[in-house]
């Protein structure tokens, strides 16, 4: 599903954000990517979305080799993956329903498909009753669930969440993480970048720890950062 082969990323200003990254995330996996800000975590996600291109090495997502991917192909790569952000990124002048439908409109789906898929997606995140509300009328947790519904509406094989609980209180954070876990159980590969220790520790999922541009630890059923007892698995 996702593979990094000897990836190095150097920004034009000379900063080396990632170095010697080898990583494989299989279909159906659930993985946390943890690390402090500036660790290279965001760069890793940007490489996945082809917002940035690796300076060296190869990133393979959904069968696309990103180093040689034409700019024209990028939209089609992104249609195969859902994205959820810390700041939700909903359109304020559209209702919940319209926000979710928007993701299908821009990929030029049939209106019939839109009418079928959007309610299903909203039901999945438990917001069917709020379909006609506007984002500002919802709580942060609800807004993030709308964002998740939008990211899932095109049935992506991969869901990438960048600090999805960063703006939420613990209770709502839990709701979101549980939802992501459900999504994963339905077969979608989920990658979550976070620095929320409690959640990572409680979930007991794969943890990929990044520090100073390198993978420090890649652990199945891992914890956030128990440095003392940690054992390292380099993939």
């Amino acid at each position, binding site marked *: 599903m996702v593979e990094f082969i000897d990836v190095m990323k150097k920004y034009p200003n000379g900063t080396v954000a990632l170095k010697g990254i080898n990583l494989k995330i299989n279909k159906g996996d659930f993985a946390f990517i943890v690390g402090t800000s500036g660790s290279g975590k965001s760069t890793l996600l940007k490489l996945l*979305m082809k*917002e940035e291109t690796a300076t060296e090495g190869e990133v393979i997502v959904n069968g696309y080799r990103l180093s040689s991917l034409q*700019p*024209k192909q990028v*939209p*089609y*790569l*992104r*249609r*195969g993956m859902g*994205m959820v952000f810390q700041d939700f*990124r909903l*359109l304020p002048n559209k209702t919940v329903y319209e926000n979710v439908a*928007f*993701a299908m*409109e*821009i*990929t*030029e789906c*049939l*209106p019939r498909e839109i009418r079928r898929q959007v309610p299903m997606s909203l039901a999945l995140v438990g917001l069917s009753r709020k379909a006609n509300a506007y984002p500002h009328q919802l709580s942060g947790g609800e807004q993030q669930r709308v964002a998740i519904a*939008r990211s899932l509406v*095109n049935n992506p094989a991969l869901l990438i969440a960048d600090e999805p609980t960063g703006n939420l209180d613990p209770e709502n954070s839990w709701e979101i993480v549980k939802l992501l876990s459900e999504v994963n159980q339905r077969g979608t590969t989920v990658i979550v970048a976070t620095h929320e220790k409690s959640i990572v520790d409680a979930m007991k999922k794969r943890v990929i720890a990044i520090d100073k541009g390198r993978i420090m630890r890649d652990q199945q059923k891992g914890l956030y950062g128990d440095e003392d007892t940690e054992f390292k698995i380099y993939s």
Partner: protein
Amino acid sequence: MKIRSLRYILKESFVNAYRNRLMSLASISIISAALILFGVFYLILINLNHNLDLLYDKPQMQVYCLPELTDEQVEAVKTEIANNEDIESYKEISKKEAFDQLKEYLEDEKKDLGGANILEGYDESMMFVSFTVKVKDPQNSNKVAKTLEALAGVDNVKYSQQTIDMILKVSNWVKIVSFVLIGLLLVISLFIIANTIKLTVFARRKEINIMKYIGATDWFIRWPFVFEGILIGLLGATIAFVLVAYIYSFAQPRLAEEFSGGLEMVQFGSEWGTLVLIYLGISAVIGASGSIMSIRKHLHV
């Protein structure tokens, strides 16, 4: 782009133009101004060309003899004209005929001249004999004119070539001036439209960003802005066309009267079609390129 997206794209472009109406209006005005100017010059050129065609069609020449010429001398000139191979036909206008024509003309104008009979005390002896000559091939006008002018007793020769040359000169200047002015105005319009679209793009940059992440193609994102530019251009063109058509229909009969005898004004018919097409073409191209200019940099997400 698929047809079902067209509705979305058109709706978005109208909404964008409306939300940004002040700048949209500014763009519409400037593009109208450019196109009105274009229309005015275009109509001037059309009229000049029309008159040129008319002149080409009547290869006539006026040969004026000196007033003091005796009848024999006039006869000699006449023989020369009659023997010239390039001349198809000719007609003599005697002193008397010329005097009668003048009298008739002054009779018509009497009112304007305060009712005075200016010709009192004069007779036809003050007039001169002239010939109206029709040249076989208008291309030879120049040569014939030179030959006739060289004849003894001929004062001067007037023929349409001189008018043609003058009109050509005028229309060349009109062309140069209009190219420069219209070019300048079109460039200004382009930048103002680009700026208008830039404001819309800026207002919607978050939306564009989201669209990029969800996997919208660049053209899907671009179309509403391109349509907004085209819409602005077309509105400007419509206003310009209505104004130019109105002004011309108002001015044409009045100018035609003013120039009667000299220049002829074109009655507009088929020419409007060409003008409409030019207007639509220019405005759409300016509108579209203005928007493409300003969205280019925002699409790199």
